[in-house]
């Protein structure tokens, strides 16, 4: 009987979680010292701040009776966007991190050990030897 209300409330909770993750990520983007540390904030911002609210919006749209037939377009398209984001966002940030490390654009600041650097040196060592 209260199907629409519960679906909408669940969607709103998800959107609220998403907004909180989004705020935390954007504050993190400002406060973190280095590009590599900012990657954590960016991925929190994309997955927690975009994927979770989109699922919530899909639920809100499904429960929204007053939208009429539009709600199915909204729910479908936001679920597709969510799937696109969950697949592409990690790939995008990973490619960016790899290219930045390879092109040595950012000094690895808070550094304990850089295994990738060692592997590259080892590989170059084998090539020269």
């Amino acid at each position, binding site marked *: 009987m209260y199907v629409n209300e519960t679906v909408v409330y669940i969607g709103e909770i998800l959107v609220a979680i998403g907004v909180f993750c*989004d705020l935390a990520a954007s504050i993190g983007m400002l406060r973190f010292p280095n590009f590599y540390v900012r990657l954590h904030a960016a991925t929190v911002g994309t997955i927690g701040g975009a994927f979770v609210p*989109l699922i919530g919006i899909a639920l809100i749209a499904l*429960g929204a009776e007053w939208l009429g037939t*539009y709600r199915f377009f909204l729910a479908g398209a936001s679920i597709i966007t969510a799937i696109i984001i969950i697949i*592409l966002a990690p790939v995008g940030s990973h490619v960016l991190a790899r290219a930045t490390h390879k092109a040595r654009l950012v000094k690895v600041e808070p550094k304990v050990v850089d295994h990738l650097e060692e592997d590259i040196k080892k590989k170059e060592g084998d090539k020269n030897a």
Partner: protein
Amino acid sequence: MSLEEQVTLFIMIVFPLYLLSFTLYIIRAIRGPTIPDTVLAIDALSFDIAAFLALLSILYRSPILISCAVVLALWVYALDIYVSKYFEARDMGD
């Protein structure tokens, strides 16, 4: 309070929080010391704008905005790939 007003009120509450996080991302994009910082900030910002567009399409009760969110998510991925390909190619271009 009917469900419609309740959802509209909820979206009105969520709006300024989204806009606040957008401004913080834009500050990082402008101030970012290196190019990857700017690209990362724009990447995260655009994915959140895609979610924001979906939210807008609920508020304005029209399905037209949502198609733009799908394209935006794809476009940002292309931006990442293109910029990182440029970084790597330039590095090997010696």
